[in-house]
C-alpha cells in the first residue's frame, strides 16, 4: 500500500531512515575508498613524464609491469613470501586452536584466547623491530653464538633474508589464524567425533574424516586473513629485509615516491590487487565447496 502524498521508494519513511543511517558510512567509503581507487586505476592508464601525467589513456604501464623481469621477480617473491607465511602460520595455528578447543577446560578457554592475543598489545612496528633485535647482524642470536665461540663472525643468513621475513610475519599473524580455526572447531558438535569412533574409526581417522573437513571453513578464513595483508606488507621487508629484498609494497613506494613515476606505480598497485583477488576467489570457491554440506 502506498502513502498518498509522496509515492516511490523515498516516500517510505523506513527507507528514508535507513538511507540516512547508512549515509555517513556510505559517504566515508565513497570519498576515502572508492574515489582513491578510481584515481589509482586512472593513473595506471596514463603516462608519467617529467612534465606531468599525460592525458591519453594507454595500457603501456601494464605491459611494462607484466613483462618486465624485475617486476615479475618481485611479484613472485611477494607471492612466495605470502604463501610461505600463510602455510607456516596456518599449520602452526591449527594445533594451537585444536588444543584450546578440545583439551582446555571450558572455563579456561577465554583465558587462553586472551593470552593468544597478547602480541597485539604492542604495535606491529615494535614487534618487527624486536625481531630485528633478535635476528640482526649484532642481534641476540649472533652475539650469543659469537660469545659462545660457535661462530667466528655474525651469520648473515638469519637477517636480511626471505627466511627471516617469513619468521617475522608468521609470528605477527599467528593470532589471526588461530582465532577463526578455533571458532570453527568450537562449532563442531562433539557427538560427531563419538559417532566417527562408534562407526569403527580410530581417533586419528575420525580427525581426518570428520574434524578436519568440518573445520575447513575456519582454515580457509585463516588463509585469507593471513595471505591478503602479508602479500602487501611494507614494514617487514623494509626493516627485516633491510630494503634489499623488496616486495610489492616497497616497489610501489619506490616507483611512486622515489622515482616519481605514479603511472607505473599505480599499474603495479592494480596488478597486486588483481593477484590478491584471484587468490581470494579461489579460496572462497573452495570454502563454498566445504560449506555446501553445512548449515
Amino acid at each position: 500500500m502506498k502513502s498518498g502524498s509522496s509515492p516511490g521508494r523515498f516516500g517510505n519513511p523506513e527507507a528514508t531512515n535507513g538511507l540516512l543511517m547508512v549515509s555517513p558510512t556510505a559517504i566515508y567509503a565513497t570519498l576515502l575508498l572508492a574515489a582513491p581507487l578510481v584515481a589509482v586505476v586512472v593513473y595506471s592508464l596514463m603516462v608519467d613524464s617529467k612534465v606531468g601525467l599525460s592525458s591519453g589513456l594507454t595500457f603501456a604501464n601494464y605491459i611494462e609491469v607484466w613483462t618486465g623481469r624485475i617486476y615479475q621477480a618481485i611479484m613472485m617473491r611477494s607471492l612466495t613470501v605470502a604463501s610461505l607465511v600463510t602455510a607456516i602460520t596456518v599449520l602452526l595455528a591449527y594445533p594451537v586452536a585444536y588444543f584450546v578447543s578440545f583439551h582446555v577446560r571450558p572455563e579456561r578457554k577465554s583465558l587462553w584466547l586472551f593470552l593468544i592475543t597478547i602480541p597485539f598489545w604492542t604495535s606491529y612496528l615494535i614487534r618487527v623491530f624486536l625481531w630485528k633485535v633478535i635476528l640482526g647482524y649484532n642481534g641476540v642470536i649472533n652475539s650469543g653464538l659469537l660469545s659462545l665461540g660457535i661462530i667466528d663472525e655474525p651469520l648473515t643468513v638469519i637477517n636480511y633474508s626471505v627466511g627471516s621475513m617469513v619468521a617475522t610475519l608468521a609470528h605477527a599473524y599467528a593470532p589471526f589464524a588461530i582465532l577463526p580455526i578455533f571458532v570453527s572447531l568450537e562449532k563442531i558438535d562433539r557427538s560427531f567425533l563419538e559417532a566417527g569412533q562408534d562407526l569403527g574409526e580410530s581417533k586419528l581417522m575420525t580427525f581426518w574424516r570428520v574434524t578436519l573437513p568440518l573445520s575447513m571453513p575456519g582454515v580457509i578464513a585463516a588463509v585469507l586473513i593471513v595471505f591478503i595483508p602479508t602479500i602487501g606488507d611494507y614494514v617487514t621487508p623494509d626493516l627485516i629485509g633491510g630494503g634489499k629484498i623488496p616486495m610489492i609494497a616497497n616497489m610501489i613506494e619506490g616507483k611512486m615516491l622515489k622515482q616519481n613515476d605514479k603511472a607505473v606505480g599505480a599499474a603495479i598497485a592494480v596488478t597486486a590487487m588483481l593477484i590478491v583477488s584471484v587468490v581470494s576467489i579461489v579460496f572462497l570457491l573452495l570454502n563454498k565447496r566445504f560449506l555446501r554440506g553445512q548449515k
Partner: protein
Amino acid sequence: MTFSSDKPNMIEFRDVHKYYGDYHALRGINATIKAGEFFSLLGPSGCGKTTLLRTIAGFEDISSGAVLIDSKVMDGVPANQRPTNMVFQSYAIFPHLSVEQNVGFGLRRDPRSAADKAKAVAEALEMVGLKGYGKRAAHALSGGQRQRVALARALILKPKVLLLDEPLSALDKKMREQMQMELIKLQRQVGITFILVTHDQEEALVMSDRIAVMFEGQIAQLADPETLYRRPNSRKVADFIGTMNFLPAQILSEGSSCEIEAQGFGRMTIGADQVMGATSGEGMSIGCRPETLTILFDGQTATDRESMATVEEVVYYGDMTYYDVKLDGAQTAMRLSMRNVPGRPVLDIGTRARVGWSPGAMVLFR
C-alpha cells in the same frame, strides 16, 4: 509381551560403579540383557541411564566392576572396536557428507567391492524407508529423516547391540508414535539386541521386552512392562510409571495370603506377591491404578467388592472421564478413570457413587 529367557546373555553388568570426581553416577549396577531383546533404561534425567548406555558403547570408562558384551569383558576396549553401534540423541549426522556417504561411513575397511557397498547402502536406506534419498545433502533432511539415516548408518554395520539414546525425544508426538512402531518392527526384522534410553514411561512400556527403571544411579526394578505396571516394587517406581493412588494401610496377618486393612477400603485378603518388601519410610500404603476402580451405575453390581464414595472432581477427556473420588472413611481422594461408552452419563461434582474394586488389583507397599 513375554520374552523367552533361554536366550544367551548379550550384555552383562557386574557391580558397575562410576564416579565423576566426588559424584557417584552409577552405584552398583547388576543386570543382564539377553540376545535379541528390546531392553529399555527408563528414569528421570540425571538417573545415570545415559551414562550406563555410554559404558556399553565405550564412551565412558567405569570406575569399578565390569561390562561384558557377548561374554567378553570390555575393559580397555575402545569404542571403535566394540560390536555396538549407537543412534545419538542429536543423531550426529555428518553435515559435510551426503545421505549415502553418512550411511556408508563405517564401511571404509569393509573388504567388499565399491559396488557391493553401494548396494548395501541402498538396502539399508530402503530398510528405514528412505529409498532414493542417497544423494541428498544431510542438512536438507527433516528430524524424522535424520533419525532414519542414523539408524541405517548403525544397522548397516550389523552390530550385536544397537544403542539408542533418547532417539525419539526430538520428534513431535505423531511422528514419535509412528517411529515407535517402526522401531519395534525393525527390531523384530533384524533380530539385533536394542537398548533404548528414555525418560518417557509410555515409550518404554510400548516398545520394550524388559525395562530397567533407574533412580539415582541404581536400578530400582527390572521387569517386563506388565509386571512393572501391575506390580511395581516401590512407591517410587509406581509413581514414575503411570498414575497410582495411595491410601494408608496396615497388615493384620501375614502368610501365603495376607489380611490387610486399608483406609476407605476396609479389610481385604491379598496374595503375598502383592506385598512389596521395599520400605518407603512413609508408613505402609496400598496402591491401585485408576482403571482398576469403576463407578457402578444403577442396576450394575460389583464383580468383586464395592464401597461408597463422593465425587470431588470431574475431568472430561473425550474418550475417557477422570474422576477424583473420596471413599467414605478415607482422608484423600483417588483418581478413577471411566471409558465414555454411549448411554453412560458423566457424573457431577458432589454426586454420591458406588465404587467397585478388586483386592487382586491392589499392591501393598511396606
